[in-house]
């Protein structure tokens, strides 16, 4: 029955005969391993089409849903991370396999008549595959894709004459947005694969026309049929490629089984946050590096003219091969080209590995990506998109706000919030020495000397040396916590660099009080005051301890208004209009901190005695949301995922 249906179908369509002819086509000279490259190109394309199609079923191209849908595929849908991983590495494999196929064609001289067109087809596939990769990078709409895509879009813009128009057309507007994503998806999943499939079909057609084998006539090897001899080799090679890709996907878990599964998905694209570690795919790094050598205004040479000329030389290879030594020239030329690309790419990688900006951007990107993962799990994605989660997250935004607004005077655990030690150029004045500068800037002399290895002898006036920015205000790590307050009540530390050392309160009343009263005999009482005052802040990290020490806190509060006489200068409990020091009611709490940063010169805080700190809200330097984020971050108040990873 089945046979009769097939026979009927074959009679009407000829498909059966065609399939048979393809499968059992004669292979002059028998099967070869080096024939697998063509099949591999088709296979990897098929792999990309399959994985791409299934990714497409879950993808939503818009600036509020692209990242979100990919994140959903990758971390919510069963097997999604594997699918995206295969597609990610498959894209790279396609370029690799194409280059190797091209190389094989040149080395074995398979571009010679009558196969020139076949050679050009493989050549044409190369820019198409790069276009696939370039359009595909933007689609997840993470920081990496967003910033990396600006380069190909920019290159489009320097195309002579039509550049700006082409750029605007590709982006679907003047900026990257919804239409850039819909356009890129249409290219990536529609037009480009169609072109590639068409070329591959044409390639196969020509292959059949010119014969599958290309061994010379004098080879004594017997003919074989394509199936199973060559088919077996092809299938084994395809499976091997798949397994290698699978290995790449699984390798990170073999290294670290607790990692978030899936290839890296950065934080959602944010046009206001430059991602300085954006790079093209590794196989395009050579062009990235190459472009560094073209000064402003001449990019068109590096990006379009020179690659175009090189492409033309490669395209002419079938004709060059007709000359004496022409073939050797071709092999040498292509070899040199690949070597040069390899060296340029390697140079780019080495330069990056030494580039502080690149490395810290990369590290921050990984931190943000991980943080996004936690935030999405905790809060869910709002309809306005996931980027808002990160913008409203104290853990991510706090350090940036601190570095920008506070770190010119304050430190956070010795750094600027982001982990950098702020440095400045110090012009040496008369009578200044290594020692005096180091003392003024609260750093060891040895550290200062290490920063300036080129200055060996004593300093002369007008010398310009690098030094740490002097901390003018207290170090705010753990502000209002028991540890922090214990330091404030320590006679040895109160006028040191972490507290009032850089301020005009260095010899102020508080400093004097601590030195006079914080004696070993009163250590117990001081400790109670510290605990009571710290409880005012209601810090998340101390919630348990504060609850346990309720009795001590009660005693401490009594001491503050009693023996310790804090209320001589400060308001505590009830408002004292004559208070000269900052309000202690709710000291370090969220509301207190926001009010303090808003205006430290308010009568409740330092009043007229305020030492240089700006009124951040009253002067409109920070808005209410930023103040809240900064306060939350300083107080260590942000969402922390449960330790055991239970979701």
């Amino acid at each position, binding site marked *: 029955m089945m046979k009769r249906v097939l026979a009927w179908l074959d009679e009407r369509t000829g498909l059966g005969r065609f399939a048979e002819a393809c499968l059992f086509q004669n292979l002059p000279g028998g099967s070869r391993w080096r024939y697998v490259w063509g099949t591999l190109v088709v*296979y990897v394309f098929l792999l990309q089409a399959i994985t791409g199609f299934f990714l497409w079923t879950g993808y939503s191209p818009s600036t509020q849903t692209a990242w979100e849908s990919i994140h959903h595929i990758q971390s919510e849908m069963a097997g999604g991370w594997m699918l995206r991983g295969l597609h990610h590495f498959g894209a790279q494999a396609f370029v690799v396999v194409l280059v190797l196929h091209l190389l094989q064609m040149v080395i074995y001289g398979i571009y010679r008549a009558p196969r020139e067109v076949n050679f050009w087809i493989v050549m044409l596939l190369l820019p198409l595959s790069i276009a696939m990769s370039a359009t595909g990078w933007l689609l997840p709409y993470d920081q990496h894709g967003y910033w990396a895509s600006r380069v190909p879009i920019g290159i489009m813009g320097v195309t002579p004459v039509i550049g700006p128009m082409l750029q605007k057309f590709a982006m679907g507007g003047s900026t990257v947005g919804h239409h850039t994503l819909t356009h890129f998806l249409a290219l990536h999943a529609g037009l480009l694969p169609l072109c590639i499939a068409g070329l591959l079909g044409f390639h196969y057609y020509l292959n059949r026309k010119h014969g599958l084998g290309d061994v010379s006539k004098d080879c004594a090897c017997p003919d074989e049929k394509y199936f199973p001899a060559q088919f077996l080799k092809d299938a084994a090679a395809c499976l091997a490629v798949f397994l290698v890709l699978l290995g790449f996907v699984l390798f990170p878990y073999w290294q670290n089984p607790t990692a978030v599964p899936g290839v890296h998905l950065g934080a959602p694209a944010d046009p206001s946050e430059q991602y300085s570690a954006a790079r093209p795919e590794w196989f395009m790094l050579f062009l990235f590096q190459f472009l560094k050598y073209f000064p402003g205004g001449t990019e068109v040479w590096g990006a379009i003219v020179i690659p175009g000329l090189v492409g033309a030389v490669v395209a002419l290879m079938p004709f060059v091969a007709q000359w004496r030594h022409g073939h050797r020239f071709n092999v040498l030329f292509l070899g040199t080209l690949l070597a040069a690309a390899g060296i340029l790419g390697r140079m780019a990688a080495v330069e990056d590995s030494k580039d502080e900006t690149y490395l810290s951007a990369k590290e921050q990107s990984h931190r943000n990506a991980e943080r996004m993962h936690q935030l999405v799990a905790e809060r*869910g994605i709002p309809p306005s998109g996931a980027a808002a989660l990160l913008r409203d997250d104290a853990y991510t935004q706090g350090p940036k706000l601190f570095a920008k607004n506070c770190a010119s005077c304050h430190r956070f655990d010795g750094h600027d919030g982001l982990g950098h030690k702020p440095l400045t150029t110090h012009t040496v004045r008369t009578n200044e020495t290594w020692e005096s500068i180091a003392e003024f800037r609260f750093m060891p002399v040895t550290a200062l000397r290490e920063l300036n290895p080129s200055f060996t002898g004593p300093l002369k006036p007008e010398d310009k040396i690098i030094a740490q920015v002097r901390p003018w205000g207290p170090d705010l790590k753990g502000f209002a916590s028991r540890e922090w307050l214990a330091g404030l009540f320590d006679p040895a530390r109160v006028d040191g660099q972490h507290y009032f050392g850089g301020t005009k309160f260095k010899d102020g009343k508080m400093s004097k009080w601590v030195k006079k009263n914080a004696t070993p005999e009163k250590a117990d009482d001081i400790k109670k005051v510290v605990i009571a005052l710290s409880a005012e802040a209601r810090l998340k990290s101390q919630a348990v301890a504060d609850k346990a020490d309720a009795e001590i806190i009660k005693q401490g509060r009594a001491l503050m208004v009693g023996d310790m006489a804090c209320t001589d200068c400060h308001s505590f409990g009830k408002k004292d209009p004559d208070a000269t020091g900052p309000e202690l009611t709710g000291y370090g709490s969220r509301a207190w901190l926001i009010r303090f940063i808003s205006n430290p010169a308010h009568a409740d805080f330092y009043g007229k005695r305020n030492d240089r700190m700006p009124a951040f809200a009253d002067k409109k330097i920070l808005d209410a949301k930023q103040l809240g984020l900064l306060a939350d971050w300083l107080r260590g108040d942000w969402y922390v995922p449960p330790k055991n990873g239970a979701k």
Partner: protein
Amino acid sequence: MQEKPPAPGTPATAPTERREFLKQGCAACLGLAAVGAPVAVGVRVLLDPLHRSGGSDAFVKVTTIDSLPEDGTPVQFPVLADKRDAWTKFTQVPVGAVFLQRQGARQPLALSVVCPHAGCFVDYLEDQESFLCPCHNSFFKKDGSLKDEQSPSPRRLDTLDVEVRNKTEVWVRFQDFQLGITEKIPIA
């Protein structure tokens, strides 16, 4: 890839035949594995929604009892609820509608607006005191039972669980039911 059985007439035990057959089998299997593996991964992802349960069937507050006409006329109300659509978390968005009517002073009756035949929203015709489906003319009485036995709908309008909480609030367990069958089975 279809395997070619050894040609009839030749002894199947001939070593070259056997080797050839093995080769063909191997080739077919490897080819199938190479293409099948990515398909399998993709299908796994595609089938993911099957493992997920639908929206919650918790009670949602729809309106207050006082907003229902005293004479028992059904009124259509939108149902707002928190909802998670794949990746997006929505708060208080429309998820559907419900017909509410009084059955006695404090006792509401909740009817699904969805015709159990093909899923169209039914209309209430005040002059006839009945529900009419605009798609295929299924006809229901005011209490949701079938009015016309010739109606295409296989069952009456679906009732929804309804509660009055805090004296005046009307809470409905908003659910969808499978269409086109005589039993009322909620869609999970």
